[in-house]
């Protein structure tokens, strides 16, 4: 049977993709960030997941303002890196796992999560930057990816506890898939940041630390952080941290924290990263 082995939380700052694509990963500004992922690259080379289930948000790329699904599950054979205005990132095509996607889609709806099904979808930096941070620059991504896009652009994003419950439902779906597959779940985005208006540049490291502690050790409590707290304390774009709770919901109640990294800044953002293993 398929099973969830581990979880990864990771910011998806576009500037990190640009830095990697332009070979600029060792200077004074970006060097410390990429060093924080050296351990992670070694870890995932040993972990060798068969599939990554990757929770991210689209930045008006696959979805502009015409259609805004709250939860959209990728069910395609592959996903092309999108042109976000500067040409597509020079990274490999993201291969899907259609049978697992189809199984999860069906299982979620029957479990009362009425998700949107995407049979064609381009993917932007929200999905490809975490892959870059974990795998570097391979000729092909080492395993297929099942993407789940979450709306965090138009308020309200789904509640943290709804994301947590969705993660639990995804876990049930994975656990009931008949093939032997080791699955690693990624929750991406964050950490505290605000990109807009006069308060842009907001960083709240103390809050970020508390968020990570709750996520790892007390997810039943942390998933109830309400939207106004995210907006006020973590910045208007920090609310995308709800996506980490989808990952957390797919993990066991008790997890082991294998790695934690936190750094300010990458462009406008605090970078946060966790590796969790199921106990």
């Amino acid at each position: 049977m398929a099973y969830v082995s581990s979880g990864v939380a990771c910011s998806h700052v576009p500037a990190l993709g640009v830095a990697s694509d332009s070979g600029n990963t060792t200077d004074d500004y970006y060097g410390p960030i990429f060093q924080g992922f050296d351990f992670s690259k070694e870890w995932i080379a040993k972990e060798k997941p068969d599939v990554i289930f990757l929770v991210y948000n689209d930045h008006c790329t696959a979805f502009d303002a015409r259609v805004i699904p709250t939860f959209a599950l990728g069910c395609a054979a592959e996903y092309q890196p999108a042109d976000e205005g500067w040409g597509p990132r020079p990274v490999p095509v993201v291969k899907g796992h259609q049978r697992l996607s189809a199984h999860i889609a069906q299982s979620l709806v029957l479990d009362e999560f009425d998700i949107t099904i995407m049979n064609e979808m381009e993917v932007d930096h929200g999905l490809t930057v975490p892959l870059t941070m974990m795998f570097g620059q391979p000729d092909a991504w080492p395993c297929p990816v099942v993407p789940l896009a979450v709306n965090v652009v138009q308020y309200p994003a789904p509640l943290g506890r709804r994301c947590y419950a969705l993660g639990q439902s995804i876990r049930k779906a994975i656990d009931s898939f008949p093939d032997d597959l080791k699955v690693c779940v990624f929750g991406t985005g964050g950490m505290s940041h605000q990109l807009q208006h006069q308060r842009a540049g907001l960083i709240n490291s103390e809050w970020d630390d508390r968020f990570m502690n709750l996520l790892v050790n007390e997810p039943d409590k942390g998933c109830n952080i309400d939207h106004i707290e995210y907006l006020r304390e973590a910045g208007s774009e920090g609310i995308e941290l709800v996506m980490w709770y989808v990952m957390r919901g797919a993990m066991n109640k008790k997890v082991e924290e294998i790695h934690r990294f936190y750094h300010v800044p990458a462009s406008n953002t605090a970078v946060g990263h966790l590796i969790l293993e199921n106990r």
Partner: protein
Amino acid sequence: MTESKPYDDIPGTVVFDSDQAARGYHLNQFCISLRLQPNRDAFKADPETYIDQYPMSAEQREAALNQQWNRMLELGGNIYYTAKLAAYHGINFQELAGLMTGMGSTSYRKMMVDGGRSIDGNRYKSEWQDK
């Protein structure tokens, strides 16, 4: 006109909620169209004709043509959309933040390297009254 919202008291922040999204729809669709090169070329060739394909308000049109970044957000724009218009003008996210905060790129970048804008004094509009 609209009811008061719990996030109205956050300073220097426009929450892109469904009211703002409805108000800014055509402005945002204009901005996102600039993701694609043929559209950037058409906008460059004739900005006014190009923007007039999008039935936005006169205020929004003026804000977009004059690169009034905060004004666009107030009129229903969203940062991920207006950032595409900024990119068209060769302005990246960090430079855009320098413009929206009024700090300029150099001091904004320095603030970020020094740990970012502190949360202290930046939670409530009441804390900004003296500024």
